[in-house]
């Protein structure tokens, strides 16, 4: 079968059908291994039993997803605001850039989730604040780095033009610098969205209030309810995908409305 000779429509069909087929095949083999070959439920719960748990614990799964999702969202928003704001300052004043560069580099290399126990004890074990702070820190780094790069993409001809117009700093920022940087900002947010979910979720493994997806995964696994733990994992995957797809959608939408097509 040659994909190259297919019509564009056929190609789209293949693009959708192929991964779905692979997914179903994997699930089939998985179910087969557990029910027919007899891999123990303890090692690998069957897809059917995971779905059963998903249905049985649906209200708990939904509330856990909302808790973790809220933490991730607050973190993403705060991290984005901080990232864009600090990048704007760093782009404007060289000194801010020099001062912030080592801090950002440090944030970029340390596993931010490792701060979870520390932040938990700092802000109390009954607060979601530590998790939100971790999600914010994790989101901050890619947003800052991408935005700062975006702020430096302004074309010399645009800079000359704005100078010839005697435009104020604010006007230059609004009409040229920010629109030029926008695709970079959005890419940063898209990358940060996945990190925010992962950080908010993993931070729950290190104590603090229960009820989020991460907390329930570890509780279920600790009480040998493996199928239930897997059901929460499925919900986590769905949450991560949701964040990614929403930010990707925003990126596509904005970039289609605002063609940025190359340097001119």
């Amino acid at each position, binding site marked *: 079968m040659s994909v190259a000779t297919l019509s564009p429509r056929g190609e789209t069909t293949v693009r959708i059908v192929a991964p779905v087929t692979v997914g179903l095949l994997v699930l089939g083999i998985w179910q087969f291994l557990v029910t027919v070959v007899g891999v123990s439920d303890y090692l690998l719960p069957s897809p059917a039993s995971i779905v059963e748990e998903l249905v049985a614990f649906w209200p708990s799964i939904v509330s856990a997803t909302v808790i973790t999702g809220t933490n991730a969202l607050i973190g993403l928003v705060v991290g984005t605001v901080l990232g864009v704001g600090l990048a704007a300052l760093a782009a404007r004043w060289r000194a801010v850039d020099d001062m912030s560069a080592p801090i950002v580099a440090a944030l970029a290399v340390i596993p931010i989730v490792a701060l979870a126990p520390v932040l938990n004890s700092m802000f109390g074990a009954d607060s979601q604040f530590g998790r939100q702070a971790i999600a914010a820190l994790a989101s901050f780094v890619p947003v800052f780095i991408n935005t700062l790069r975006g702020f430096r993409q302004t*074309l010399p*001809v*645009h800079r*000359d*033009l704005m*100078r*010839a*117009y*005697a*435009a104020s700093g604010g*006007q230059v920022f609004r*009409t*040229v610098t920010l*629109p030029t940087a*926008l695709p970079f900002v959005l890419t940063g947010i898209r990358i940060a969205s996945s990190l925010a979910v992962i950080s908010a979720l993993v931070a729950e493994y290190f104590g603090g209030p229960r009820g989020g997806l991460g907390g329930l995964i570890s509780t279920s696994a600790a009480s040998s309810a493996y199928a239930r733990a897997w059901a929460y994992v499925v919900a986590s995957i769905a949450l991560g995908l949701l964040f990614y797809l929403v930010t990707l959608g925003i990126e596509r939408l904005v970039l289609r409305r*605002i*063609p*940025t*097509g*190359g340097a*001119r």
Partner: protein
Amino acid sequence: MSTAPTTTAAVRVTGVDKTFETRSGVVHALQGIDLEVAAGEFVSLIGPSGCGKSTLMRLIADLDEPTAGTVEVNGTSAAQARKDQAYGIAFQQAGLLPWRTVAANVALPMELHGPSGAARRERVADLLEMVGLSDFADRYPDQLSGGMQQRVAIARSLAEKPSILLMDEPFGALDEMTREKMQTDLVRICAETGAAVAFVTHSIPEAVFLSDRVVVMSPRPGRIQEIVPIEVGADAARDDHLREESVFFEHVTAVREALHGGSAASTARGVETR
């Protein structure tokens, strides 16, 4: 030269030097430049690459500052003229904002300072009419050809009815046919607006076709070699017929000789010393 001229020149450049500090030493981009552009006059700056013609234009636009000498625009300093928006400017790159429509690009200078609302919309419509792009108001720059983009840039430079237009090789990236069309359009637009124009180019026929005077520059250091007045006669209009007139070719020859005069002489001296 009187300090209080009775008629204010559009541009007056007096004793201007410009040097750039580079890692390999000091580069003399311009030396001892004196130039005056009268109100409504079309003056071209022509010369080989590196003769400082674009640098001179940037000094007039106050995008750079001279190392020595003064630049006056409309009787004020270049910096004040820039703040007053005394000139419109167009570069070799159209420099349109790709996320704005054609109409929004033309409206940009008026958004920064100038009329708003209906007056702005009317002006944009007039300008697009003038450059023949009324049907493209809602397109984005990447949907236009290079020539059309440059026309948008020219419309934008005229947005605030400047009495001076500064143009740095605006047709440099266009093909010959588009270029001639744009030159004819520019002559018409200048006649309509009465603006003085300082026009950087490296095309001799372009300079002759457009200008009242052609300033021939020589490189390293950038100097004014000769100023060639272009007199096509009172009755000869600057239209496509002019390109085929003998007076046109005479002036092309005059500018070419002025351009090559400097280098020819130095080659001759070089031969002599050998």
